[in-house]
């Protein structure tokens, strides 16, 4: 919130850049990226010689590359990118580069403080993680995905600790995957590992693991739960504790388990569980029956269900309310506390609560134009491009980052004027 407080919430409109001009100036304009505060817009641009560079608020980086992608502003409005030149990958930050070079680098992610960056990398033929330019010393036959601790000091990845021959199904079944933290793998391997996450105090890591064909559980710091399940999905830590909650399948139904023991009723499906900001309530996407999707809060499902999709729940900052994206009969909208907006859309983005939780806004698409929707009411203006709206600290103003007629604007609009 401190950062948002520092943003300009007074200037009604800033014209930042003419993207149509960029399109005239360069052979191609790709991957437009906007800073969180809306003050900067950047894109990968192609020069006439076929090489790529970055145009950032109109300024052009002098360096050029054969490949360039994954533009990402940090919260100090420095621009990260992944850049490839002369058979080496590097990480660009504004008009400079990390010293380290890589065989490959991907999954570029900002650190929790919003300033630094972390990514998976391959260097000298081995795989690991690089945090702010520092590569793991221990590297592996493979590394898939990453997690960073909330304090920003530790990184984890799903690593392949043993190389095996092609189609060696017996060696695979003995387990060749582990979680490595800062390059140090757990004491034991598993047949497979999927999502993994740090505890809020950054000391523990939980992961969904495969023990055998048809046998799954959650492992915390390499130690599996005593209970084995027919299937599990992604674990989360209860904030401020070392308790781990994950969806688990027992027989034909799913429940949420904490540290291996069921804490919810049974559902046809459960995933996307999330704790409220105060850590007291748990909500998840559930199916009460086949094709009947909804949200359950503290195991109580909303009475309304949707026949195609309900995405993961979003709590209001005060933990009082829950909203989610829902889809029925190929139309998208938002449901808040079980009640869907009447208006439906071709596509809709994540719901955003006002600081006091009273209002919900979202970006939505209708007939090839993008709108801000406020509590289900579609905004007056349709835009050619639009980024997720942001509530001001007092909840009365909204930051709108939009492109109209090829021009990018940063606008501050009172909620009741949208």
């Amino acid at each position, binding site marked *: 919130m401190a950062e948002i407080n520092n943003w300009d919430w007074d200037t009604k409109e800033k014209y930042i850049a003419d993207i149509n001009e960029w399109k005239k100036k360069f052979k191609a304009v790709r991957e437009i990226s906007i800073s969180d505060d809306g003050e900067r817009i950047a894109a990968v641009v192609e020069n006439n010689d076929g090489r790529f560079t970055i145009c950032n608020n109109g300024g052009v980086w002098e360096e050029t590359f054969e*490949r360039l992608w994954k533009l990402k502003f940090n919260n100090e409005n420095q621009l990260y990118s992944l850049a490839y030149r002369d058979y080496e990958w590097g990480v660009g930050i504004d008009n400079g580069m990390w010293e380290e070079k890589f065989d490959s680098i991907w999954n570029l992610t900002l650190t929790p403080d919003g300033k630094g960056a972390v990514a*998976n990398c391959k260097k000298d033929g081995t795989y690991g993680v690089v945090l702010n330019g520092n590569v793991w010393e221990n590297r592996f036959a493979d590394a898939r995905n990453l997690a960073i601790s909330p304090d920003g000091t530790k990184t984890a990845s799903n690593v392949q600790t043993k190389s095996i021959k092609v*189609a060696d*199904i017996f060696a*695979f079944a003995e387990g060749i995957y582990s979680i490595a933290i800062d390059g140090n793998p757990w004491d034991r391997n598993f047949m497979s590992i999927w999502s993994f996450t740090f505890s809020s105090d950054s000391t523990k890591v939980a992961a969904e693991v495969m023990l055998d064909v048809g046998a799954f559980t959650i492992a915390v710091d390499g130690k599996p739960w005593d209970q084995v399940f027919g299937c599990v999905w992604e674990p989360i830590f209860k904030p401020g504790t070392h308790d781990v909650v994950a969806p688990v399948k027992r027989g034909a139904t799913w429940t949420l388990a904490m540290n291996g023991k069921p804490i919810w009723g049974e559902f046809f499906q459960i995933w996307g569980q999330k704790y409220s900001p105060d850590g007291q309530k748990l909500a998840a996407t559930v199916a009460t029956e086949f094709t009947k999707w909804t949200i359950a809060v503290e195991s109580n499902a909303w009475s309304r269900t949707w026949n195609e999709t309900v995405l993961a729940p979003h709590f209001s900052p005060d933990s009082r309310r829950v909203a989610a994206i829902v889809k029925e009969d190929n139309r998208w909208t938002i449901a808040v506390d079980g009640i869907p907006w009447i208006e439906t859309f071709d*596509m809709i983005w994540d719901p955003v609560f006002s600081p006091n939780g009273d209002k919900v806004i979202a970006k939505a*698409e209708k007939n090839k134009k993008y709108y801000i929707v406020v509590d289900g009411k579609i905004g007056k203006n349709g835009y050619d491009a639009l980024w997720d709206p942001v509530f001001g600290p007092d909840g009365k103003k909204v930051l709108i980052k939009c492109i109209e007629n090829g021009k990018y604007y940063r606008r501050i609009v009172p909620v009741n004027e949208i």
Partner: protein
Amino acid sequence: MLKYERKEIADLGIDESVKRLTPEKITKTINNVLKGTGARLKAYLDTCIHCGLCAEACHYYLSHGKNPTYSPVAKVKLTLWEMVKNKGNVSPDFIAQCSRIAYTECNRCRRCSLYCPYGIDIWYLIALVRRICLLLKVVPQYEMDTNYSHAATLNMMWLKQDDWIDTVQWQEEEVRMEYKTARIPFDKEGAEVMYTPIAPEPKFKPQLLAATAKIMHAAGVDWTMPSFDGWDNSDISMHVADFETMSRVERKHFEAAFKLKVKRIVMCE
């Protein structure tokens, strides 16, 4: 009396795996699977009158000189009926036979169900045999290896995450030699279409990705592909009856589309 006779074909996934089985494990696994079948299995088993009309539907039967042991009803009789009749007490060699029949002598076309006067879903019965063989890990080696690839990487060809990205970026460079403004746009949020190949494309025939890019370019389609897991639309786990891995792969595929905010998924094949 049906006699199952076949030319011997070595397969590590079957021959070696059965050596690791114990009678207890076989019985427990079979009975656990059968316990979860409910009325459907019972109805099918009690309804079948062994008329053999399903035989003429089966291309394995027809292409093996109408050898009766290739008829669908025989395949069930040589596998599942024996398991049920013996309450799961069958030998490792019998499991090897079941694996061979279920995985290599039925390709789940379901034509036999259309010939059955009662509409019995014979594929469902064969799938139960596959499920039992899977849980006993008695599966032809390369099918199991592909299934394991899905389990470990969520694609069927063991592609590492950076292999996938590099291959697509390379193919974009290839297609742009011919069509200067063509693209293979990774992770374009809000695109109309998410296109997903099967993993053999980037692994063995990457030029197919360039061919797709040419089609998309010529057709003016607003499209994207995920740079992250979920890009492979294949699901061999479904074929081997690894339903847990199957659902994980499918979930990831759909979640890629949700993440990219596309309106449609377009798949190769």
